[in-house]
């Protein structure tokens, strides 16, 4: 893993952290010249995963920290989200079924559905007090070396 192809963000588990995350993803997309569709998938999956941590991971009095590592490995882009909030394994979560009518529509449960839809692989492990969620994105059409937009098609 070369330095040029990896990046790290440490952010508070707060709404201000979400804005830092948005800037980090945008800078990563620019630096790595990611295709717009891949940048959107990455943005959405990270936003949903970290929003869940902020909403459910910490009791109101506690201030948590979320650390995100991103790197490229051949034709895959990988991000790992570490947080020390309450244990939660999103791979075991069963989202509600898609509603057939507005009356049936549930309030929540869409975030994890979106992560499963847009990430190619999701891995979770609990390490002592740490949640570690790894998301893998394959760069369809990219060269063997990286996920650059210039190498699409």
């Amino acid at each position, binding site marked *: 893993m070369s330095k040029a192809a990896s990046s790290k963000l440490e952010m508070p588990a707060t709404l201000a952290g*979400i804005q830092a995350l948005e800037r980090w993803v945008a800078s990563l997309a620019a630096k790595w010249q990611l295709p717009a569709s891949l940048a959107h998938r990455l943005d959405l999956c990270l936003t949903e995963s970290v929003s869940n941590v902020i909403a459910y991971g910490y009791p109101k009095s506690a201030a948590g920290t979320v650390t995100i590592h991103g790197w490229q490995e051949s034709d895959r882009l990988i991000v790992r989200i570490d947080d020390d909030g309450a244990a939660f394994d999103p791979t075991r979560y069963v989202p509600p079924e898609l*509603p057939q009518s*507005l*009356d049936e*529509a549930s309030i929540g449960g869409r975030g994890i559905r*979106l992560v499963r839809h847009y990430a190619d692989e999701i891995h979770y492990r609990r390490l002592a007090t740490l949640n570690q969620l790894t998301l893998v994105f394959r760069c369809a059409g990219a060269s063997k070396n990286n996920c650059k937009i210039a190498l699409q098609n």
Partner: protein
Amino acid sequence: MELATRDMEAGILGITLSGRMDIVGTQQIDLKLTSLTTTKKAQILVDLSQVSFLASIGIRTLVNVAKAQKLRGGTLVLYKPTDQVEDVLNATGIQAIIPVAHDMAQARRALGVS
């Protein structure tokens, strides 16, 4: 995020949302959108063409206001989402429960106005 309203043809209430509809952006417009769309019966067009990003928290707000407006006897249509936003709507099954229109003819049909 920002929210602007405009009176449209046939009494349709147009609401244009713009910006990033994540947890931060949705909080900025949620109260105003809810009060505009749920206090009386209306035919409402929510213009999403300037929404650059839609997260599940934003979908939750759209579902809530569409549900509340249905209880009032009115209708709400989502108008001209970008390709990325429409993909998110499809992935969460929203297009099956809230009409999505790409032009005014479709919007009028969905809202039941001629």
